[in-house]
């Protein structure tokens, strides 16, 4: 009896970050009802405090291993993504606070939805159990659906939400169906049981088969299940072939929401995906049967990666809207990150984590720039930026750094990320040949240079008589900070490397 209580208490203590976020979300909701303010900084502050507290707990819990209620497992890998999510969500909240067009709306719910999406991601990346994974994913998705359609009166927003929800529902269904097939062949929902890491199912008490056995009995079924589950993930990370929604939804949604989708929820999707494939295939002690199958999966992932980055970059080439261009570029980056996963070994996983970290700085910076200028000029086209470069250097020079980093040119953090990815692609798991993927990655960064430099060109190389935009100090400070970090971690990226490496306890 007491033992049970102890167990509960211990589990709750392990779940403290999640609980903090839940309480924060509820507090925000209630205070919104109480204060009834349209334009509230205080709510945002509360949200930030909550996120900060969660982040602190995550940092302090760094290195602790454990499983709460047999479902939620605490490890550095999950910790990395939780930290990432809370940081990204915090930035999104800051964006909302800085963007006066956003504050027209029911601000409390806005924060509430952002926070609950974050909670969903927390659970999604923090579990070995497919059921909980699906639940977390759905929680995040549901919140995101409503966020995408948050500007109720706007057609574009509504359309974005509609597309998002339909596509999301479909891919959720596909994923769940795939999971059902996997359940059919293995008889369990726990990845560790499938991989054979755990002998007995921590939750269910049925008889379970490991994936190796399942592969012998019905390989076709497993393959189908893998593809379907991959489909579900690739919706979340907006990779081919489930990326079609991304440009439209990113364009239609409010910019802070776009930021959240492009950074936080994408990273969350990667967290779940990497945990899934990592535990099932990459873990050190998989049988040779699984190892052989791993390489096939790796090839599939490589194809997906190549297709994603190429499609994203090509489509981005001739965009006239900065927002849509960034949407495509984030699609392409999903492809880049996938390269690391496709390598199907620890180095690859590390590379992916590292690149996500790099992606955090440069993409948040780019979206901050977008937010600032769409707020100033009211437009999101490249034209509206003509000749702005010299007029607002504190905003545009960081943007140049972000773009260069997104292209992957030293000494920016984006380059070191790409370096790791190339590294991974050229030294994948044995039996896997991904040299072509490395070349494809290189060529893609050349292509991407073209459209990234179009922004620079419009900003600096062309002239206009537009008035100088009025400054927005906090945003400038934020961008400069991000730019500094982009360069700093580009030159001294050991901390990021250690962070990524520490996340590899997933595979032990």
């Amino acid at each position, binding site marked *: 009896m007491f033992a049970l209580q102890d167990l509960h208490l211990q589990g709750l203590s392990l779940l403290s970050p999640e609980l903090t976020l839940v309480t924060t979300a509820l507090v925000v909701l209630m205070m919104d009802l109480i204060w009834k303010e349209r334009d509230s900084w205080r709510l945002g502050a509360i949200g930030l405090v909550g996120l900060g507290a969660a982040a602190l707990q995550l940092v302090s819990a760094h290195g602790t291993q454990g499983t709460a209620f047999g479902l939620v497992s605490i490890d550095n890998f999950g910790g990395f993504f939780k930290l990432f999510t809370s940081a990204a969500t915090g930035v999104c909240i800051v964006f909302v606070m800085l963007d006066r067009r956003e504050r027209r709306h029911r601000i409390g719910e806005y924060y509430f939805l952002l926070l609950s999406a974050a909670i969903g991601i927390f659970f999604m990346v923090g579990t070995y159990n497919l059921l909980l994974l699906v639940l977390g994913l759905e929680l995040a998705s549901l919140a995101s659906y409503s966020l995408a359609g948050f500007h109720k009166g706007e057609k574009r927003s509504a359309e974005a939400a509609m597309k998002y929800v339909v596509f999301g529902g479909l891919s959720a269904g596909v994923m769940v169906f795939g999971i059902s097939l996997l359940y059919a062949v293995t008889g369990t929902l726990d990845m560790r049981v499938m991989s054979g890491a755990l002998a007995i199912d921590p939750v269910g008490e049925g008889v379970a088969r490991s994936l190796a056995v399942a592969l012998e009995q019905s390989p076709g079924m497993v393959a189908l299940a893998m593809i379907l589950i991959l489909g579900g993930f690739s919706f979340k990370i907006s990779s081919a072939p489930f990326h079609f929604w991304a440009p439209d939804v990113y364009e239609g949604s409010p910019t802070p929401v776009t930021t959240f989708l492009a950074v936080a929820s994408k990273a969350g999707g990667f967290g779940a995906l990497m945990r899934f494939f990592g535990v099932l295939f990459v873990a050190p002690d998989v049988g040779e049967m699984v190892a052989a199958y791993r390489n096939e999966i790796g090839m599939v992932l490589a194809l997906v990666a190549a297709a994603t980055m190429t499609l994203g970059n090509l489509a981005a080439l001739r965009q006239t809207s900065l927002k849509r261009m960034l949407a495509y570029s984030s699609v392409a980056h999903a492809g880049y990150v996938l390269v690391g996963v496709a390598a199907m070994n620890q180095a690859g996983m590390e590379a992916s984590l590292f690149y996500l970290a790099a992606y955090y700085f440069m993409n948040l910076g780019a979206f901050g720039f977008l937010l600032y200028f769409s707020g100033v000029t009211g437009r999101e086209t490249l034209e509206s930026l003509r000749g702005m470069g*010299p007029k607002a250097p504190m905003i545009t020079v960081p943007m*140049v750094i972000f773009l*260069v980093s997104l*292209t992957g*040119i*030293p*000494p920016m953090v984006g*380059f070191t990320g790409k*370096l790791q990815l*190339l*590294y991974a692609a*050229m*030294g994948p798991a044995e039996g896997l040949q991904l*040299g072509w993927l*490395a*070349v494809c990655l*290189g*060529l893609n*960064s*050349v292509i991407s*240079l*073209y459209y990234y*430099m179009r922004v*620079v*060109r419009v900003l*600096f*190389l*062309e002239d206009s008589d537009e008035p100088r935009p009025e400054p927005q100090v906090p945003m400038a400070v934020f961008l400069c900070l991000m730019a500094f970090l982009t360069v700093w971690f580009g030159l*001294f*990226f*050991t901390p990021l*490397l*250690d962070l990524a*490496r520490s996340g590899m306890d997933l595979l032990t």
Partner: protein
Amino acid sequence: MDLLNLNPENASTLLSWLTFLPLIGMCVVLMLPASNLRAIKIATGLFTFIPLVLATQMYFGTFDKTVSGYQMVQHFEWIKVLGINYSVGVDGLSMPLLWLTTILFFVAVPASETVPRLSKSYFVLLLLLELGVLGVFVSLDFFLFYVYWEVMLLPMYFLIGIWGGPQREYAAIKFFLYTLAGSVLMLIAVIALRLDTGTFSIPELVAIGKAGGFTGPALLGMSFTTWVFWFLFIAFAIKIPAFPFHTWLPDAHVQAPTPISVILAGILLKLGGYGLLRGCFPIVPDAFHHFAYVLGVLGVIAIVYGAYVALGQTDFKKMVAYSSVSHMGFVLLGMAALTEWGMNGAALQMFTHGISSAACFLVVGVVYDRAHHRDLNAFGGLAQPMPRYWALATIAFFASLGLPGMAGFVSEALTMVGAFQSQVGWTDEAIASGWMWGPFQWLTLIATIGIVMTAAYILWALQRVFLGTLNEKYQDFKDISAREVFSLAPLLILCIVLGIFPWFVLDWMEVSVADLMQILTFAG
């Protein structure tokens, strides 16, 4: 020979100081108010002058030209996890080029006087560019090398794109795309080497390559070293620029403002040749041996083809640009010949062409600032209003024509004789049957066409611009000003001094070139 002697007594921080002085200067310039352009110019001049002094001191003082291996080495771990080190050092190949770099950047500052829309950011970018160039020349770690290599791109993009001619944006992005494409190939090759050997350090890679220690897999029927060689070669050949990859050069040159053309032709092209000598050939000497004659052919094509295309130009600057293509062909030919003289000639050619082409671009700039066009056929008789200018221009152009007694001749003669001595592709029966003749002998013979054509286009241009009847539009042109002379004079003096005393540079290169040859011939 000691590839990387890290013994403490010759370790020094001089090179790091040299490399990062421009960065300091950049910060200083950033501090200055944008309105006070004069102060900014003075500061930039100062912070290009200090490196010049430092490099000169190194060249004549610190650098010991009699010992082989790297000197003034500084070496510490940068990113331990990936085995990336910050290791810098110079040898006889890089030291002269380093000196040349500081000279040309110092010259470029007064030459920037007439750049339109001149502003603070121009000088900031100029200093940033110098940082990148110096870094490439000193770095002994491939990762560091690559970082500096890419650091050059962005300033160059802006310098061409903002302060360039009418088609500047097009030229700038073309330059950027071309170079980045090359860099990506280089990056892939470097990573392949790293995965294979576990080190980024160039000297270690050289040692491993010398020992034939690469174990990489063969792909598509080509061996690992072959892949690495071609990837690296293309990366550097784009910078040189070698024949098929040269088309970015004319646009970049024509659009860039004068000082940037000076730097572009004077140094950035040399980076390609330097990269080949430092980072490509010694690492995969066997592949280099195998494809040497291909390189020779490319070089000769560049020589002849470039000369002909230059002859066909009506734009003064474009002509000079194509002449660079032609002259850099000699570098390739000399390297490919695999002879002491050829290698010395190529190395020297990089230096001398750096001087003479820079001088030529300055000369073109002078006339462009007055006439605001560069159409060769629209000039004529300019020697009458501006005799001093004619004299200086004559020196510059005859130096690049390769007139004996001037810098160009020495390197070209060395290259040609060296190429003629080459025994690459000789068959045993050819040697046995006293008729000692092979591919490179033919190539040298063909290259002589290029020499004659060089004389042709330069003389023709001089005639069309300076001689004959004066176009009265230009009656009242001012003769070359003191500032222009100030930027032009050092180069011309060097042109003549090097023509009479080539050992002024050759002595510095000789030992390193000998080591290099020893590595390269070792494999063959």
